Protein backbone atom coordinates (compact mmCIF):
# COMPACT_ATOMS: atom_id res chain seq x y z
CA UNK A 1 0.00 0.00 0.00
CA UNK A 2 2.81 2.35 0.86
CA UNK A 3 4.55 1.85 -2.48
CA UNK A 4 1.25 2.54 -4.19
CA UNK A 5 1.08 5.86 -2.45
CA UNK A 6 4.64 6.68 -3.25
CA UNK A 7 4.03 5.85 -6.86
CA UNK A 8 0.92 7.99 -6.90
CA UNK A 9 2.73 10.96 -5.39
CA UNK A 10 5.58 10.63 -7.85
CA UNK A 11 3.10 10.41 -10.67
CA UNK A 12 1.22 13.47 -9.51
CA UNK A 13 4.44 15.45 -9.21
CA UNK A 14 5.29 14.47 -12.75
CA UNK A 15 1.85 15.31 -14.11
CA UNK A 16 1.46 18.60 -12.33
CA UNK A 17 5.03 19.59 -13.02
CA UNK A 18 4.35 19.08 -16.69
CA UNK A 19 1.16 21.11 -16.48
CA UNK A 20 2.95 23.87 -14.64
CA UNK A 21 5.63 24.01 -17.30
CA UNK A 22 2.96 24.24 -20.00
CA UNK A 23 1.16 26.92 -18.04
CA UNK A 24 4.29 29.03 -17.77
CA UNK A 25 5.11 28.60 -21.45
CA UNK A 26 1.63 29.86 -22.31
CA UNK A 27 1.32 32.58 -19.71
CA UNK A 28 4.56 34.43 -20.37
CA UNK A 29 3.83 35.57 -23.92
CA UNK A 30 0.17 35.99 -23.05
CA UNK A 31 1.11 38.24 -20.18
CA UNK A 32 2.98 40.26 -22.72
CA UNK A 33 -0.23 40.78 -24.70
CA UNK A 34 -2.04 41.94 -21.58
CA UNK A 35 0.77 44.34 -20.73
CA UNK A 36 0.84 45.65 -24.28
CA UNK A 37 -2.84 46.47 -24.08
CA UNK A 38 -2.27 48.40 -20.87
CA UNK A 39 0.88 50.29 -21.79
CA UNK A 40 0.32 54.04 -21.88
CA UNK A 41 1.21 55.78 -25.12
CA UNK A 42 4.15 57.74 -23.75
CA UNK A 43 5.79 54.74 -22.20
CA UNK A 44 5.23 52.66 -25.30
CA UNK A 45 6.90 55.17 -27.51
CA UNK A 46 9.77 55.64 -25.14
CA UNK A 47 10.79 52.12 -24.33
CA UNK A 48 8.23 49.76 -25.79
CA UNK A 49 6.23 47.41 -23.62
CA UNK A 50 7.60 46.81 -20.12
CA UNK A 51 7.79 43.33 -18.65
CA UNK A 52 5.78 44.40 -15.65
CA UNK A 53 3.74 47.40 -14.60
CA UNK A 54 2.05 48.18 -11.34
CA UNK A 55 -1.71 48.52 -11.66
CA UNK A 56 -1.52 52.27 -11.01
CA UNK A 57 0.56 52.65 -14.15
CA UNK A 58 -1.96 50.86 -16.35
CA UNK A 59 -3.64 52.81 -19.05
CA UNK A 60 -7.04 51.79 -20.31
CA UNK A 61 -6.90 54.26 -23.17
CA UNK A 62 -6.91 51.56 -25.81
CA UNK A 63 -9.94 49.82 -24.28
CA UNK A 64 -11.69 53.12 -23.98
CA UNK A 65 -11.01 53.93 -27.56
CA UNK A 66 -12.42 50.65 -28.76
CA UNK A 67 -15.43 50.75 -26.46
CA UNK A 68 -16.23 54.34 -27.25
CA UNK A 69 -16.70 53.69 -30.93
CA UNK A 70 -20.14 54.73 -32.00
CA UNK A 71 -20.57 51.45 -33.78
CA UNK A 72 -19.28 49.30 -30.93
CA UNK A 73 -22.53 48.42 -29.21
CA UNK A 74 -24.25 47.70 -32.47
CA UNK A 75 -21.38 45.54 -33.63
CA UNK A 76 -21.33 43.59 -30.39
CA UNK A 77 -25.05 43.01 -30.76
CA UNK A 78 -24.62 41.88 -34.35
CA UNK A 79 -21.93 39.49 -33.22
CA UNK A 80 -24.18 38.12 -30.52
CA UNK A 81 -26.99 37.59 -33.00
CA UNK A 82 -24.72 35.86 -35.50
CA UNK A 83 -23.09 33.70 -32.84
CA UNK A 84 -26.25 32.63 -31.05
CA UNK A 85 -28.40 32.03 -34.08
CA UNK A 86 -25.51 30.49 -35.98
CA UNK A 87 -24.62 28.10 -33.20
CA UNK A 88 -28.22 27.09 -32.62
CA UNK A 89 -28.76 26.50 -36.30
CA UNK A 90 -25.52 24.57 -36.62
CA UNK A 91 -26.31 22.31 -33.71
CA UNK A 92 -29.84 21.78 -34.90
CA UNK A 93 -28.52 20.62 -38.25
CA UNK A 94 -25.49 18.73 -36.98
CA UNK A 95 -27.08 16.64 -34.25
CA UNK A 96 -29.57 14.75 -36.46
CA UNK A 97 -26.96 14.01 -39.09
CA UNK A 98 -24.44 12.86 -36.52
CA UNK A 99 -27.09 10.64 -34.96
CA UNK A 100 -28.09 9.23 -38.32
CA UNK A 101 -24.49 8.43 -39.17
CA UNK A 102 -23.97 6.80 -35.80
CA UNK A 103 -26.82 4.41 -36.49
CA UNK A 104 -24.91 1.58 -38.06
CA UNK A 105 -27.97 -0.14 -39.44
CA UNK A 106 -29.18 2.89 -41.37
CA UNK A 107 -29.49 2.15 -45.10
CA UNK A 108 -27.54 4.76 -47.07
CA UNK A 109 -25.28 5.60 -44.16
CA UNK A 110 -22.07 5.00 -46.09
CA UNK A 111 -23.37 6.89 -49.06
CA UNK A 112 -24.16 9.91 -46.92
CA UNK A 113 -20.78 9.71 -45.22
CA UNK A 114 -19.06 9.64 -48.59
CA UNK A 115 -21.08 12.54 -49.88
CA UNK A 116 -20.36 14.79 -46.92
CA UNK A 117 -16.69 13.76 -46.86
CA UNK A 118 -16.55 14.86 -50.45
CA UNK A 119 -17.61 18.37 -49.48
CA UNK A 120 -15.00 18.31 -46.74
CA UNK A 121 -12.24 17.67 -49.24
CA UNK A 122 -13.32 19.91 -52.07
CA UNK A 123 -13.52 23.59 -51.33
CA UNK A 124 -14.94 25.44 -54.29
CA UNK A 125 -13.76 28.78 -52.93
CA UNK A 126 -15.33 32.18 -52.64
CA UNK A 127 -16.80 32.78 -56.08
CA UNK A 128 -18.98 29.65 -56.39
CA UNK A 129 -20.30 30.30 -52.88
CA UNK A 130 -20.97 33.92 -53.63
CA UNK A 131 -22.87 33.11 -56.78
CA UNK A 132 -25.14 30.85 -54.79
CA UNK A 133 -25.72 33.30 -51.97
CA UNK A 134 -26.59 36.14 -54.33
CA UNK A 135 -28.92 33.95 -56.39
CA UNK A 136 -30.74 33.00 -53.22
CA UNK A 137 -30.98 36.70 -52.46
CA UNK A 138 -29.34 36.24 -49.08
CA UNK A 139 -26.78 39.02 -49.37
CA UNK A 140 -27.20 41.79 -46.83
CA UNK A 141 -28.91 39.40 -44.44
CA UNK A 142 -27.61 37.50 -41.45
CA UNK A 143 -28.55 34.29 -43.23
CA UNK A 144 -25.69 34.83 -45.67
CA UNK A 145 -23.33 34.62 -42.72
CA UNK A 146 -24.83 31.71 -40.81
CA UNK A 147 -26.30 29.45 -43.49
CA UNK A 148 -23.45 28.58 -45.86
CA UNK A 149 -21.06 27.42 -43.13
CA UNK A 150 -23.82 26.01 -40.89
CA UNK A 151 -22.68 22.38 -40.80
CA UNK A 152 -19.06 21.44 -40.42
CA UNK A 153 -18.16 17.97 -41.60
CA UNK A 154 -15.42 17.79 -39.02
CA UNK A 155 -17.80 18.60 -36.18
CA UNK A 156 -20.41 16.19 -37.50
CA UNK A 157 -17.99 13.30 -37.65
CA UNK A 158 -16.58 14.08 -34.23
CA UNK A 159 -20.06 14.17 -32.77
CA UNK A 160 -20.86 10.91 -34.51
CA UNK A 161 -17.82 9.29 -32.94
CA UNK A 162 -19.13 10.25 -29.52
CA UNK A 163 -22.65 9.08 -30.28
CA UNK A 164 -21.19 5.77 -31.36
CA UNK A 165 -19.60 5.47 -27.94
CA UNK A 166 -23.01 5.24 -26.31
CA UNK A 167 -23.65 1.57 -25.58
CA UNK A 168 -25.99 0.04 -28.11
CA UNK A 169 -27.80 -1.87 -25.33
CA UNK A 170 -29.29 1.27 -23.84
CA UNK A 171 -30.76 2.28 -27.16
CA UNK A 172 -31.92 -1.25 -27.85
CA UNK A 173 -33.65 -1.41 -24.52
CA UNK A 174 -35.53 1.77 -25.30
CA UNK A 175 -36.44 0.42 -28.70
CA UNK A 176 -37.91 -2.67 -27.13
CA UNK A 177 -39.90 -0.39 -24.89
CA UNK A 178 -41.41 1.01 -28.06
CA UNK A 179 -39.41 4.21 -28.39
CA UNK A 180 -38.75 5.45 -31.90
CA UNK A 181 -35.48 7.00 -33.06
CA UNK A 182 -36.68 10.51 -32.36
CA UNK A 183 -37.44 9.55 -28.78
CA UNK A 184 -34.15 7.70 -28.41
CA UNK A 185 -32.21 10.70 -29.63
CA UNK A 186 -34.22 13.00 -27.44
CA UNK A 187 -34.37 10.99 -24.25
CA UNK A 188 -31.20 8.94 -24.28
CA UNK A 189 -28.55 10.09 -26.70
CA UNK A 190 -28.74 13.84 -26.10
CA UNK A 191 -28.81 13.72 -22.30
CA UNK A 192 -25.81 11.41 -22.39
CA UNK A 193 -23.90 13.67 -24.76
CA UNK A 194 -23.87 16.97 -22.98
CA UNK A 195 -20.06 17.36 -22.93
CA UNK A 196 -19.75 16.79 -26.64
CA UNK A 197 -22.77 18.95 -27.42
CA UNK A 198 -21.16 21.73 -25.44
CA UNK A 199 -17.80 21.14 -27.04
CA UNK A 200 -19.13 21.18 -30.57
CA UNK A 201 -21.42 24.06 -29.68
CA UNK A 202 -18.41 25.96 -28.48
CA UNK A 203 -16.47 25.14 -31.63
CA UNK A 204 -19.30 26.57 -33.66
CA UNK A 205 -19.77 29.57 -31.40
CA UNK A 206 -16.10 30.49 -31.49
CA UNK A 207 -16.07 30.13 -35.23
CA UNK A 208 -19.06 32.41 -35.69
CA UNK A 209 -17.79 34.83 -33.11
CA UNK A 210 -14.48 35.28 -34.90
CA UNK A 211 -15.75 35.26 -38.45
CA UNK A 212 -15.04 38.44 -40.33
CA UNK A 213 -14.55 37.49 -43.96
CA UNK A 214 -18.09 36.56 -44.97
CA UNK A 215 -19.62 39.61 -43.25
CA UNK A 216 -17.23 41.79 -45.21
CA UNK A 217 -18.18 40.09 -48.43
CA UNK A 218 -21.91 39.70 -47.95
CA UNK A 219 -22.96 42.68 -45.84
CA UNK A 220 -22.83 46.09 -47.46
CA UNK A 221 -24.22 47.99 -44.54
CA UNK A 222 -21.53 48.84 -42.04
CA UNK A 223 -24.08 49.00 -39.26
CA UNK A 224 -24.77 45.28 -39.75
CA UNK A 225 -21.14 44.29 -39.37
CA UNK A 226 -20.08 42.19 -36.37
CA UNK A 227 -17.34 42.99 -33.89
CA UNK A 228 -14.35 41.42 -35.67
CA UNK A 229 -14.99 43.62 -38.69
CA UNK A 230 -15.21 46.74 -36.59
CA UNK A 231 -12.04 45.87 -34.72
CA UNK A 232 -10.29 45.25 -37.98
CA UNK A 233 -11.44 48.63 -39.21
CA UNK A 234 -10.22 50.33 -36.06
CA UNK A 235 -6.83 48.74 -36.49
CA UNK A 236 -6.76 49.55 -40.15
CA UNK A 237 -7.46 53.15 -39.35
CA UNK A 238 -4.91 53.24 -36.56
CA UNK A 239 -2.49 52.19 -39.23
CA UNK A 240 -3.70 54.71 -41.75
CA UNK A 241 -3.67 57.20 -38.96
CA UNK A 242 0.02 57.48 -39.58
CA UNK A 243 -1.00 59.21 -42.73
CA UNK A 244 -3.76 61.21 -41.19
CA UNK A 245 -3.61 64.84 -41.58
CA UNK A 246 -4.76 66.32 -38.34
CA UNK A 247 -4.96 65.19 -34.79
CA UNK A 248 -5.44 61.52 -34.46
CA UNK A 249 -8.56 59.68 -33.54
CA UNK A 250 -6.17 57.32 -31.94
CA UNK A 251 -4.68 57.89 -28.56
CA UNK A 252 -2.98 54.53 -28.51
CA UNK A 253 -0.31 52.89 -30.61
CA UNK A 254 -1.42 50.22 -33.05
CA UNK A 255 0.08 47.39 -31.05
CA UNK A 256 -1.78 48.47 -27.91
CA UNK A 257 -5.06 48.76 -29.73
CA UNK A 258 -4.52 45.39 -31.31
CA UNK A 259 -3.90 43.67 -28.01
CA UNK A 260 -6.80 45.41 -26.34
CA UNK A 261 -9.21 44.45 -29.07
CA UNK A 262 -8.06 40.86 -29.05
CA UNK A 263 -8.51 40.63 -25.29
CA UNK A 264 -11.95 42.18 -25.63
CA UNK A 265 -12.96 39.57 -28.19
CA UNK A 266 -11.68 36.86 -25.87
CA UNK A 267 -13.74 38.13 -22.99
CA UNK A 268 -17.09 36.45 -23.73
CA UNK A 269 -15.35 33.14 -24.26
CA UNK A 270 -13.38 33.63 -21.09
CA UNK A 271 -16.66 33.96 -19.23
CA UNK A 272 -18.43 31.22 -21.14
CA UNK A 273 -15.80 28.54 -20.91
CA UNK A 274 -15.72 28.06 -17.15
CA UNK A 275 -19.49 27.76 -17.28
CA UNK A 276 -19.16 25.03 -19.83
CA UNK A 277 -16.37 23.47 -17.85
CA UNK A 278 -18.77 22.61 -15.06
CA UNK A 279 -20.10 19.89 -17.29
CA UNK A 280 -16.65 18.60 -18.02
CA UNK A 281 -16.35 16.59 -14.85
CA UNK A 282 -15.52 12.98 -14.86
CA UNK A 283 -18.40 10.61 -14.62
CA UNK A 284 -21.00 13.23 -15.45
CA UNK A 285 -22.32 10.92 -18.08
CA UNK A 286 -22.41 7.62 -16.48
CA UNK A 287 -23.91 9.01 -13.31
CA UNK A 288 -26.81 10.16 -15.37
CA UNK A 289 -27.16 6.77 -17.02
CA UNK A 290 -27.33 4.97 -13.75
CA UNK A 291 -30.18 7.06 -12.50
Amino acid sequence: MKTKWREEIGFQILVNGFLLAVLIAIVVPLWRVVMTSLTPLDLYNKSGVPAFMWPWDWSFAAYKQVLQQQLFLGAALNSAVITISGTALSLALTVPLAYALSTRSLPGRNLITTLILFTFLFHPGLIPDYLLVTRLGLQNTVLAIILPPAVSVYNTLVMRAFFEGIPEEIKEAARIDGANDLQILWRIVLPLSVPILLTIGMFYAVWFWNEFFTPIIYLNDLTMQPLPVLLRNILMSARLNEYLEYDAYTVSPVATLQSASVLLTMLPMLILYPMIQRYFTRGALIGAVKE
Partner: protein
Amino acid sequence: MSQFMSAATTRVGRAQRSAHSSGGFSKRVRQLGLAMWKHRWIYLITAPTLLYYLVFKYIPLYNAQIAFKEFQPLLGIEGSPWVGLQNLEGFLNSIYFGQLMTNTIFFSGARLVLGMPIAIVLALMLHETRFAFFRNVVQTITYLPHFLSWVIMFGILLMLLSPSDGLVNEIIKSFGGEPIAFLTTPNWFRQIVIGSDIWKETGWSTILYLAALLSISPELYEAAAVDGASRLQRIWNISLPGILPVIVLVTLLRLGNILQGGFTQIFVLYSLPVYSVGDIIDTWVYRSGILDFQFSLATAVGLFKGVIGLTLIMVSNQLAKRFAGRNLY
Protein backbone atom coordinates in the same frame (compact mmCIF):
# COMPACT_ATOMS: atom_id res chain seq x y z
CA MET B 1 -31.50 -8.94 -39.13
CA SER B 2 -28.33 -6.94 -38.85
CA GLN B 3 -26.84 -9.02 -41.65
CA PHE B 4 -29.63 -8.02 -43.96
CA MET B 5 -29.13 -4.48 -42.99
CA SER B 6 -25.44 -4.39 -43.77
CA ALA B 7 -26.21 -6.06 -47.04
CA ALA B 8 -28.73 -3.36 -47.71
CA THR B 9 -26.22 -0.70 -46.79
CA THR B 10 -23.57 -1.90 -49.15
CA ARG B 11 -26.21 -2.24 -51.81
CA VAL B 12 -26.56 1.47 -52.15
CA GLY B 13 -22.96 1.85 -53.16
CA ARG B 14 -22.90 -1.19 -55.38
CA ALA B 15 -26.18 -1.02 -57.15
CA GLN B 16 -24.86 -2.22 -60.50
CA ARG B 17 -22.96 -5.17 -59.20
CA SER B 18 -25.90 -6.68 -57.40
CA ALA B 19 -28.28 -5.91 -60.22
CA HIS B 20 -27.35 -8.99 -62.22
CA SER B 21 -28.34 -11.36 -59.43
CA SER B 22 -31.87 -10.70 -60.53
CA GLY B 23 -33.28 -13.69 -58.67
CA GLY B 24 -33.21 -12.07 -55.23
CA PHE B 25 -33.54 -8.57 -56.57
CA SER B 26 -37.14 -7.81 -55.71
CA LYS B 27 -36.71 -9.50 -52.38
CA ARG B 28 -33.74 -7.32 -51.61
CA VAL B 29 -35.60 -4.21 -52.63
CA ARG B 30 -38.34 -5.16 -50.20
CA GLN B 31 -35.84 -5.71 -47.45
CA LEU B 32 -34.24 -2.40 -48.16
CA GLY B 33 -37.64 -0.76 -48.09
CA LEU B 34 -38.36 -2.37 -44.76
CA ALA B 35 -35.05 -1.27 -43.31
CA MET B 36 -35.65 2.24 -44.51
CA TRP B 37 -39.15 2.31 -43.10
CA LYS B 38 -37.78 1.21 -39.81
CA HIS B 39 -35.53 4.23 -39.77
CA ARG B 40 -38.10 6.67 -41.12
CA TRP B 41 -37.70 8.97 -38.13
CA ILE B 42 -34.02 9.29 -38.75
CA TYR B 43 -34.59 10.19 -42.38
CA LEU B 44 -37.17 12.73 -41.36
CA ILE B 45 -34.97 14.56 -38.87
CA THR B 46 -31.95 14.34 -41.15
CA ALA B 47 -33.79 15.73 -44.13
CA PRO B 48 -33.11 19.42 -43.37
CA THR B 49 -29.39 18.73 -43.01
CA LEU B 50 -29.26 16.78 -46.23
CA LEU B 51 -31.14 19.54 -47.95
CA TYR B 52 -28.62 21.96 -46.53
CA TYR B 53 -25.80 19.90 -48.02
CA LEU B 54 -27.49 19.79 -51.35
CA VAL B 55 -28.02 23.54 -51.52
CA PHE B 56 -25.03 24.99 -49.75
CA LYS B 57 -22.36 22.44 -50.55
CA TYR B 58 -23.29 20.78 -53.80
CA ILE B 59 -24.54 23.78 -55.73
CA PRO B 60 -21.26 25.60 -55.05
CA LEU B 61 -19.47 22.43 -56.15
CA TYR B 62 -21.50 22.56 -59.32
CA ASN B 63 -20.56 26.22 -59.65
CA ALA B 64 -16.94 25.18 -59.20
CA GLN B 65 -16.94 24.13 -62.85
CA ILE B 66 -15.59 27.64 -63.41
CA ALA B 67 -12.29 25.97 -62.56
CA PHE B 68 -12.35 24.51 -66.05
CA LYS B 69 -13.72 27.58 -67.74
CA GLU B 70 -12.69 31.05 -68.61
CA PHE B 71 -15.32 32.51 -66.38
CA GLN B 72 -17.19 35.47 -67.83
CA PRO B 73 -19.72 36.95 -65.42
CA LEU B 74 -21.92 38.17 -68.24
CA LEU B 75 -22.07 34.74 -69.84
CA GLY B 76 -22.76 32.97 -66.56
CA ILE B 77 -21.38 29.66 -65.40
CA GLU B 78 -22.76 27.49 -68.20
CA GLY B 79 -22.16 30.07 -70.88
CA SER B 80 -18.50 30.66 -70.16
CA PRO B 81 -16.11 29.00 -72.60
CA TRP B 82 -14.54 25.70 -71.60
CA VAL B 83 -10.77 25.78 -71.26
CA GLY B 84 -10.08 22.46 -69.58
CA LEU B 85 -7.12 22.40 -67.25
CA GLN B 86 -5.71 25.70 -68.50
CA ASN B 87 -6.46 27.46 -65.20
CA LEU B 88 -4.39 24.92 -63.38
CA GLU B 89 -1.47 25.04 -65.79
CA GLY B 90 0.03 28.18 -64.28
CA PHE B 91 0.19 26.33 -60.99
CA LEU B 92 1.34 22.93 -62.24
CA ASN B 93 3.98 24.54 -64.46
CA SER B 94 5.18 26.97 -61.84
CA ILE B 95 8.93 26.77 -61.38
CA TYR B 96 8.15 26.59 -57.68
CA PHE B 97 5.58 23.80 -57.92
CA GLY B 98 7.74 21.17 -56.25
CA GLN B 99 8.83 23.52 -53.54
CA LEU B 100 5.29 24.71 -52.87
CA MET B 101 4.08 21.13 -52.49
CA THR B 102 6.99 20.19 -50.25
CA ASN B 103 6.57 23.18 -48.01
CA THR B 104 2.82 22.77 -47.75
CA ILE B 105 3.03 19.08 -46.90
CA PHE B 106 5.89 19.72 -44.54
CA PHE B 107 3.93 22.24 -42.52
CA SER B 108 0.69 20.31 -42.30
CA GLY B 109 2.58 17.08 -41.75
CA ALA B 110 4.61 18.55 -38.92
CA ARG B 111 1.49 19.94 -37.32
CA LEU B 112 0.00 16.49 -37.43
CA VAL B 113 3.04 14.52 -36.30
CA LEU B 114 4.23 16.95 -33.63
CA GLY B 115 1.17 18.99 -32.75
CA MET B 116 -1.27 16.15 -32.21
CA PRO B 117 0.79 13.99 -29.84
CA ILE B 118 1.55 17.03 -27.72
CA ALA B 119 -2.13 17.87 -27.53
CA ILE B 120 -2.94 14.29 -26.57
CA VAL B 121 -0.27 14.23 -23.88
CA LEU B 122 -1.54 17.50 -22.47
CA ALA B 123 -5.09 16.16 -22.44
CA LEU B 124 -3.95 13.02 -20.65
CA MET B 125 -2.07 15.05 -18.05
CA LEU B 126 -5.08 17.28 -17.50
CA HIS B 127 -7.15 14.19 -17.08
CA GLU B 128 -4.76 12.66 -14.58
CA THR B 129 -4.14 15.58 -12.25
CA ARG B 130 -5.90 15.35 -8.94
CA PHE B 131 -6.17 19.06 -8.42
CA ALA B 132 -9.43 20.04 -10.06
CA PHE B 133 -8.87 23.74 -9.63
CA PHE B 134 -5.40 23.60 -11.11
CA ARG B 135 -6.76 21.61 -14.01
CA ASN B 136 -9.39 24.23 -14.69
CA VAL B 137 -6.84 27.01 -14.59
CA VAL B 138 -4.43 25.26 -16.94
CA GLN B 139 -7.23 24.33 -19.26
CA THR B 140 -8.62 27.83 -19.44
CA ILE B 141 -5.27 29.50 -19.88
CA THR B 142 -3.93 27.11 -22.48
CA TYR B 143 -6.87 27.52 -24.79
CA LEU B 144 -6.62 31.31 -24.78
CA PRO B 145 -3.83 31.62 -27.37
CA HIS B 146 -6.25 30.14 -29.90
CA PHE B 147 -7.93 33.53 -29.94
CA LEU B 148 -4.81 35.50 -30.72
CA SER B 149 -4.65 36.50 -34.35
CA TRP B 150 -1.47 35.79 -36.26
CA VAL B 151 -0.82 39.49 -36.58
CA ILE B 152 -0.52 39.67 -32.81
CA MET B 153 1.51 36.50 -32.80
CA PHE B 154 3.93 38.19 -35.16
CA GLY B 155 4.31 41.01 -32.66
CA ILE B 156 5.03 38.52 -29.88
CA LEU B 157 7.52 36.61 -32.00
CA LEU B 158 9.29 39.78 -33.01
CA MET B 159 9.53 40.78 -29.39
CA LEU B 160 11.09 37.40 -28.58
CA LEU B 161 13.21 36.79 -31.65
CA SER B 162 14.24 40.10 -33.18
CA PRO B 163 17.98 40.14 -33.76
CA SER B 164 18.21 43.77 -32.64
CA ASP B 165 16.30 43.72 -29.37
CA GLY B 166 14.50 40.38 -29.07
CA LEU B 167 14.48 38.64 -25.71
CA VAL B 168 16.02 35.41 -26.95
CA ASN B 169 18.77 37.26 -28.77
CA GLU B 170 19.48 39.38 -25.72
CA ILE B 171 20.11 36.14 -23.87
CA ILE B 172 22.30 34.83 -26.68
CA LYS B 173 24.21 38.09 -26.68
CA SER B 174 24.68 38.05 -22.92
CA PHE B 175 26.37 34.67 -23.32
CA GLY B 176 28.61 36.21 -25.93
CA GLY B 177 26.88 34.63 -28.91
CA GLU B 178 25.94 36.20 -32.21
CA PRO B 179 22.29 37.19 -32.51
CA ILE B 180 20.28 35.00 -34.86
CA ALA B 181 17.72 36.45 -37.25
CA PHE B 182 15.26 33.63 -36.58
CA LEU B 183 12.45 34.99 -38.70
CA THR B 184 14.55 35.68 -41.77
CA THR B 185 16.92 32.72 -41.73
CA PRO B 186 15.78 29.73 -43.81
CA ASN B 187 17.32 27.32 -41.31
CA TRP B 188 15.13 28.59 -38.51
CA PHE B 189 11.92 29.65 -40.14
CA ARG B 190 10.23 26.26 -40.20
CA GLN B 191 10.90 25.63 -36.54
CA ILE B 192 9.40 29.01 -35.72
CA VAL B 193 6.28 28.30 -37.75
CA ILE B 194 5.69 24.89 -36.23
CA GLY B 195 6.60 25.98 -32.73
CA SER B 196 4.36 29.00 -32.74
CA ASP B 197 1.50 26.97 -34.15
CA ILE B 198 1.88 24.37 -31.43
CA TRP B 199 2.02 27.09 -28.80
CA LYS B 200 -1.13 28.69 -30.14
CA GLU B 201 -3.33 25.69 -30.89
CA THR B 202 -2.38 22.86 -28.53
CA GLY B 203 -4.58 24.00 -25.68
CA TRP B 204 -7.56 24.42 -27.92
CA SER B 205 -7.17 21.00 -29.50
CA THR B 206 -7.04 19.27 -26.11
CA ILE B 207 -10.69 20.13 -25.60
CA LEU B 208 -11.74 17.39 -27.94
CA TYR B 209 -9.50 14.74 -26.41
CA LEU B 210 -10.60 15.74 -22.94
CA ALA B 211 -14.21 15.35 -23.90
CA ALA B 212 -13.33 11.89 -25.19
CA LEU B 213 -11.47 11.02 -21.99
CA LEU B 214 -14.42 12.10 -19.93
CA SER B 215 -16.76 9.79 -21.73
CA ILE B 216 -14.72 6.77 -20.65
CA SER B 217 -16.51 4.95 -17.88
CA PRO B 218 -14.85 5.51 -14.48
CA GLU B 219 -15.69 1.90 -13.65
CA LEU B 220 -12.96 0.81 -16.04
CA TYR B 221 -10.41 2.80 -14.08
CA GLU B 222 -11.74 1.53 -10.79
CA ALA B 223 -11.55 -2.04 -11.98
CA ALA B 224 -7.99 -1.50 -13.20
CA ALA B 225 -7.02 0.05 -9.89
CA VAL B 226 -8.39 -2.94 -8.07
CA ASP B 227 -6.34 -5.18 -10.37
CA GLY B 228 -3.27 -3.23 -9.29
CA ALA B 229 -2.56 -1.56 -12.63
CA SER B 230 -0.13 1.34 -12.41
CA ARG B 231 -1.05 4.81 -13.57
CA LEU B 232 0.88 4.42 -16.75
CA GLN B 233 -0.72 1.09 -17.42
CA ARG B 234 -4.13 2.64 -16.94
CA ILE B 235 -3.28 5.40 -19.41
CA TRP B 236 -1.95 2.92 -21.89
CA ASN B 237 -4.70 0.33 -21.54
CA ILE B 238 -7.76 2.43 -20.84
CA SER B 239 -7.31 6.10 -21.65
CA LEU B 240 -5.57 5.78 -25.00
CA PRO B 241 -7.82 3.04 -26.38
CA GLY B 242 -10.76 5.10 -25.12
CA ILE B 243 -9.85 8.10 -27.21
CA LEU B 244 -8.47 6.13 -30.13
CA PRO B 245 -11.59 6.65 -32.27
CA VAL B 246 -11.22 10.40 -31.94
CA ILE B 247 -7.50 10.25 -32.64
CA VAL B 248 -8.04 8.17 -35.76
CA LEU B 249 -10.83 10.42 -36.92
CA VAL B 250 -8.87 13.62 -36.43
CA THR B 251 -5.81 12.14 -38.11
CA LEU B 252 -7.78 11.02 -41.13
CA LEU B 253 -9.51 14.35 -41.53
CA ARG B 254 -6.26 16.21 -41.16
CA LEU B 255 -4.70 14.01 -43.82
CA GLY B 256 -7.57 14.90 -46.10
CA ASN B 257 -6.64 18.53 -45.70
CA ILE B 258 -2.91 17.98 -45.99
CA LEU B 259 -2.58 20.62 -48.68
CA GLN B 260 -3.98 23.32 -46.43
CA GLY B 261 -0.74 24.69 -45.11
CA GLY B 262 -2.12 27.35 -42.80
CA PHE B 263 -2.37 30.41 -45.00
CA THR B 264 -2.87 33.14 -42.41
CA GLN B 265 0.06 32.08 -40.30
CA ILE B 266 2.51 31.80 -43.17
CA PHE B 267 1.25 34.96 -44.78
CA VAL B 268 1.94 36.98 -41.67
CA LEU B 269 5.22 35.35 -40.71
CA TYR B 270 7.05 34.81 -43.95
CA SER B 271 9.32 37.25 -45.72
CA LEU B 272 11.38 37.15 -48.90
CA PRO B 273 14.55 35.65 -47.40
CA VAL B 274 12.61 32.57 -46.27
CA TYR B 275 10.34 32.02 -49.27
CA SER B 276 12.30 28.92 -50.18
CA VAL B 277 11.15 27.18 -46.98
CA GLY B 278 8.00 29.15 -46.29
CA ASP B 279 6.07 29.67 -49.49
CA ILE B 280 3.03 27.37 -49.63
CA ILE B 281 0.34 26.72 -52.21
CA ASP B 282 -2.11 29.18 -50.72
CA THR B 283 0.35 32.04 -50.43
CA TRP B 284 1.37 31.46 -54.04
CA VAL B 285 -2.25 31.46 -55.17
CA TYR B 286 -2.83 34.62 -53.20
CA ARG B 287 0.05 36.35 -54.91
CA SER B 288 -1.16 35.14 -58.28
CA GLY B 289 -4.57 36.62 -57.67
CA ILE B 290 -3.55 40.01 -58.99
CA LEU B 291 -3.69 38.49 -62.45
CA ASP B 292 -7.00 36.88 -63.03
CA PHE B 293 -9.27 38.09 -60.26
CA GLN B 294 -8.87 34.69 -58.63
CA PHE B 295 -12.08 33.61 -60.31
CA SER B 296 -10.85 30.33 -61.60
CA LEU B 297 -7.32 29.78 -60.39
CA ALA B 298 -8.27 29.63 -56.72
CA THR B 299 -11.17 27.31 -57.51
CA ALA B 300 -9.00 25.10 -59.70
CA VAL B 301 -6.28 24.83 -57.09
CA GLY B 302 -8.97 24.14 -54.50
CA LEU B 303 -10.20 21.19 -56.55
CA PHE B 304 -6.64 19.99 -57.10
CA LYS B 305 -6.11 19.98 -53.36
CA GLY B 306 -9.35 18.05 -53.02
CA VAL B 307 -8.17 15.33 -55.40
CA ILE B 308 -4.95 14.87 -53.44
CA GLY B 309 -6.85 14.94 -50.17
CA LEU B 310 -9.33 12.38 -51.45
CA THR B 311 -6.57 10.00 -52.52
CA LEU B 312 -4.80 10.35 -49.25
CA ILE B 313 -7.87 9.93 -47.12
CA MET B 314 -8.89 6.82 -49.06
CA VAL B 315 -5.51 5.17 -48.59
CA SER B 316 -5.17 6.11 -44.96
CA ASN B 317 -8.73 5.07 -44.30
CA GLN B 318 -7.85 1.56 -45.44
CA LEU B 319 -4.71 1.62 -43.31
CA ALA B 320 -6.64 2.83 -40.31
CA LYS B 321 -9.13 0.03 -40.77
CA ARG B 322 -6.38 -2.52 -40.89
CA PHE B 323 -4.20 -1.28 -38.05
CA ALA B 324 -6.52 0.53 -35.68
CA GLY B 325 -9.67 -1.34 -36.54
CA ARG B 326 -11.31 2.02 -37.11
CA ASN B 327 -12.16 4.07 -40.11
CA LEU B 328 -14.43 6.80 -41.28
CA TYR B 329 -17.37 4.48 -41.90
